[in-house]
């Protein structure tokens, strides 16, 4: 693949029957709620992940990331004190951060278009809506594993390439220099479903929204 080309993602192939091997991987779940971290830990244990750590605020999350070798972070947008997206930005925007390219999945109850766009712009690999189902989580892990996106370091942004398109939208075009910037306004609608999030991301990144 040529760097700079919109990344072609075959969502259907990545998300349906792909088997991933999660044994020996170390995950970190960061959520304010102790019980919800147990929920996500349980799901990961079911997937065969043996070591799943949990944190409940931003400071301890960064401490664990520094002290332990973590392979994937799943982080809630409401993580105290300043929200999970500030953790994501802190990781991505620090040039000396040793885990700057860590795969990060963002969980959110308020899956509005504004929140999803903010998560993407913070550098998250993936957004997953609560309630999190085992199937949706497995599919998104498979997506990250088998459809890695190149990283972009553009001064104002560091993270997975936000330009990608899902095959199946033949008229999609990548974002161009002349495209208007995306304006993030006030939230107006209710939380979106996971399908709606995926559709929003795909159409936005293929230049159709």
């Amino acid at each position, binding site marked *: *693949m040529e*760097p*700079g080309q919109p990344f072609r993602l075959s969502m259907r192939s990545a998300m*349906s*029957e*792909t*088997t*991933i*091997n*999660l*044994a*020996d*991987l170390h995950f970190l779940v960061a959520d*304010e*709620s102790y*019980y*919800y971290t*147990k*929920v996500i830990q*349980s*799901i*990961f*244990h*079911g*997937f*065969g992940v043996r070591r799943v750590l949990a944190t409940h605020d931003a400071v301890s999350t960064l401490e664990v990331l520094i002290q332990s070798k973590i*392979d*994937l972070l799943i982080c809630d947008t*409401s993580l105290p004190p300043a929200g999970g997206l500030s953790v994501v930005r802190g990781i991505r925007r620090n040039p000396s951060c040793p885990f700057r*390219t*860590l*795969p990060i999945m963002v969980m959110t*109850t308020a899956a509005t278009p504004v929140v999803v766009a903010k998560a993407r712009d913070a550098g998250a690999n993936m957004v997953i809506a*609560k*309630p*999190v*189902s*085992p*199937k949706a*989580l*497995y*599919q998104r*892990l*498979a997506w*990250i*594993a*088998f459809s*890695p996106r*190149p*990283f*972009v*370091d*553009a*001064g*104002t942004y560091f993270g997975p*390439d936000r330009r990608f398109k899902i095959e199946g939208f033949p008229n999609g075009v990548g974002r161009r220099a002349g495209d208007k910037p995306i304006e993030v306004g006030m939230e107006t609608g209710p939380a979106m479903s996971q399908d709606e999030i995926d559709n929003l991301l795909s159409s936005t990144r293929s230049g159709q929204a």
Partner: protein
Amino acid sequence: MAAQSVRIFLVDTNFQVMARRPGGTDPAAAVKAAERELNDLKLDFDDWLDQETKALSDIVAEAAADELDRAAWIDAANLHGRRLQDVASTLGFDAVASISRSLCDIFDVIAERNRFYLELVECHVRALELIHQDQYRDKSLSDLSELLHGLDQLVAAAKLLTRERPKVPGLDPPAPPDDVSPPAASTRQGDTRSHDLRAGADAAAG
């Protein structure tokens, strides 16, 4: 102004390398195993629900007694409401999920429109306590439809009431105390200023 250079590079993280190894659990089996783990976790749900409902109830009692300022109790109660919504909806406790979702809607109305509906929050807490009792614990959503519908109506009424009286930033002064739903303590003393909402709340809580 110098053009900003953009670097695009491929990254194969340890997660991606390891996850692509052969030998993983097939998706259907992995999902089933995860669901079994969640079923085991559900055994703790009642105790956890007790704690969360008690915490909410304490916050509402303190707020009613004016022991907490508004921002503090709203933040604290909102936190518990979101926790309940997240966990109950993920684990499939539909009635708790529905009530806590309705409770979170109330907090959204409070946040968006700067109106304070303590009695509506109190009503939802009572509904949570109610469905946690033995005789209601195993009821389905349809069995509890009247209660849930009542709570939804309360949310709708709260939205409607605030919509009818929009605030104009810079022009509309802060609402005087008798313009908003008064604290529960005053309504208990026969204050009828929020009579409609109060009546709805009582009806919904049975």
